[in-house]
């Protein structure tokens, strides 16, 4: 049953984090935006703390317990660099990623985020179709 419970519980935690952050700080959780603020804004304390928590939380679970699916074999650094550049630049130009548009934007029923999410998911599906 773990293949059902883990995605459900994981998704609930992601949503809970976004909800608590919104209610207390008045901000939406958007990882690409927080990264940009951490790098380029004067007022960077909150986004930086959030990202630190994300990295600790996201790696602690994998270290403490056995994941059900193994990670892929290490892929080419050039593929990672190309992917990172596209994700880094694209999320700034489009003003959001899977969290900001995908989770928070859809929750707010923002038409802009619905269009963005449909666009990046379709482009990602086509990319996987062409490369796998």
């Amino acid at each position: 049953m773990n293949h059902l419970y883990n995605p459900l519980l994981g998704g609930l935690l992601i949503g809970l984090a976004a909800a608590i952050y919104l209610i207390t700080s008045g901000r939406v959780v958007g990882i690409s935006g927080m990264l940009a603020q951490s790098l380029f804004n004067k007022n960077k304390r909150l986004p930086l703390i959030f990202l630190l928590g994300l990295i600790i939380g996201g790696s602690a679970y994998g270290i403490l317990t056995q994941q059900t699916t193994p990670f892929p074999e290490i892929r080419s650094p050039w593929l990672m660099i190309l992917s990172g550049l596209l994700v880094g630049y694209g999320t700034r130009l489009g003003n959001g990623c899977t969290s900001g548009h995908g989770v928070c934007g859809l929750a707010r029923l923002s038409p802009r985020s619905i269009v963005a999410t449909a666009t990046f998911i379709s482009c990602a599906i086509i990319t996987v179709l062409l490369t796998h």
Partner: protein
Amino acid sequence: MLMLITLVCGLLFGFGLALSEMTNPAVVIGFLDIFGHWNPSLIIVMAAAVSVSMLGYKISKKQSVPLLADSWSLPTTRLIDRKLLTGSALFGIGWGLSGYCPGPGLTAVINNPQEGIYFVLALVAGSALYQFQNKK
């Protein structure tokens, strides 16, 4: 107080990503591979995350100000323009190539450093490129 809550939210968010295996690019690519060996589990993740987040949004609409801040800092742009579409398309292509979006990519520095370090350096470079192109 807000800093402590922000740290807890970051931890919960990261823990949720790991528990739902969003941090594993093999699972993410499996989800995007709808014409191959499709793994639909991330639909459950998205649906659960959006539902709880929506509940939070409903609660926030009843508050005049956030609990621990002076004012709301919510996105106000409503424009659906070429920038939004091009940016989201480029992001989607990059996401499909590696299976990393920004959050899981950051955790990969620890979980899968031989990939994560290159991805995050390029992620920062891509964001910086936009920053320098658009600085006033």
